[in-house]
């Protein structure tokens, strides 16, 4: 049974139809000691059914520690969002989700997928210019709770 209502599935399908580029969600998980990993996998599994431009790739946090380090993942469940350009080359969006993407975080995840999928950014031009000027590494951590 789907976690998403039929009406919401339809809305998501319509939104995802605007995507011009494929998006891969790298799902970092581990088999033991991660209570919320199965639930996260269950939520992610809903997405590829709604768009042929969305794929999930599961990576074992323990066995594929080099990949985790490459994507700056130090805990699970975690999702790294990667875009694919027209020739299929991966382009890391540098957007990550730590924890179960339920509730409002699910909406944020959908927005991130649409952004990386080519829907276009909601940033104003001045803000985009200002952001582009940053030439040192910056890490943003946005804390939320499931509501």
């Amino acid at each position, binding site marked *: 049974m789907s976690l998403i209502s039929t009406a919401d599935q339809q809305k998501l399908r319509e939104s995802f139809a605007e995507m011009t580029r494929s998006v891969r969600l790298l799902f970092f998980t581990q088999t033991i000691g991660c209570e919320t990993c199965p639930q996260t996998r269950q939520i992610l599994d809903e997405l590829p059914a709604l768009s042929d431009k969305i794929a999930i790739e599961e990576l074992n946090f323990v066995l594929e520690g080099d990949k985790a380090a490459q994507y700056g993942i130090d805990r699970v469940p975690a999702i790294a969002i990667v875009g694919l350009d027209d020739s299929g080359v991966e382009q890391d969006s*540098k*957007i*990550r989700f730590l924890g179960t993407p339920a509730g409002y975080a699910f909406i944020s995840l959908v927005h991130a997928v649409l952004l990386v999928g080519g829907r276009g950014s909601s*940033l104003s031009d001045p*803000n985009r210019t200002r*952001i582009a000027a940053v030439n040192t590494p*910056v*890490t943003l*951590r946005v804390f939320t709770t499931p509501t």
Partner: protein
Amino acid sequence: MAFANPNITAYAVEATEFPDLARRYQVSAVPKTVVNEDVEILGALPQDAYVEQALAQFTIEN
């Protein structure tokens, strides 16, 4: 912001699932954004104010 600049990495963190992070960054209310290890943005701000606060220390005024 992360998508607009490869120097920027953004983590959406589920605070209740990772109490160690919530403690380390002194999260007592959400949403809360922490920029690197020092700058804090409390609440949801309009885009201009958010970008301004998040990047204040990184932008060189001409």
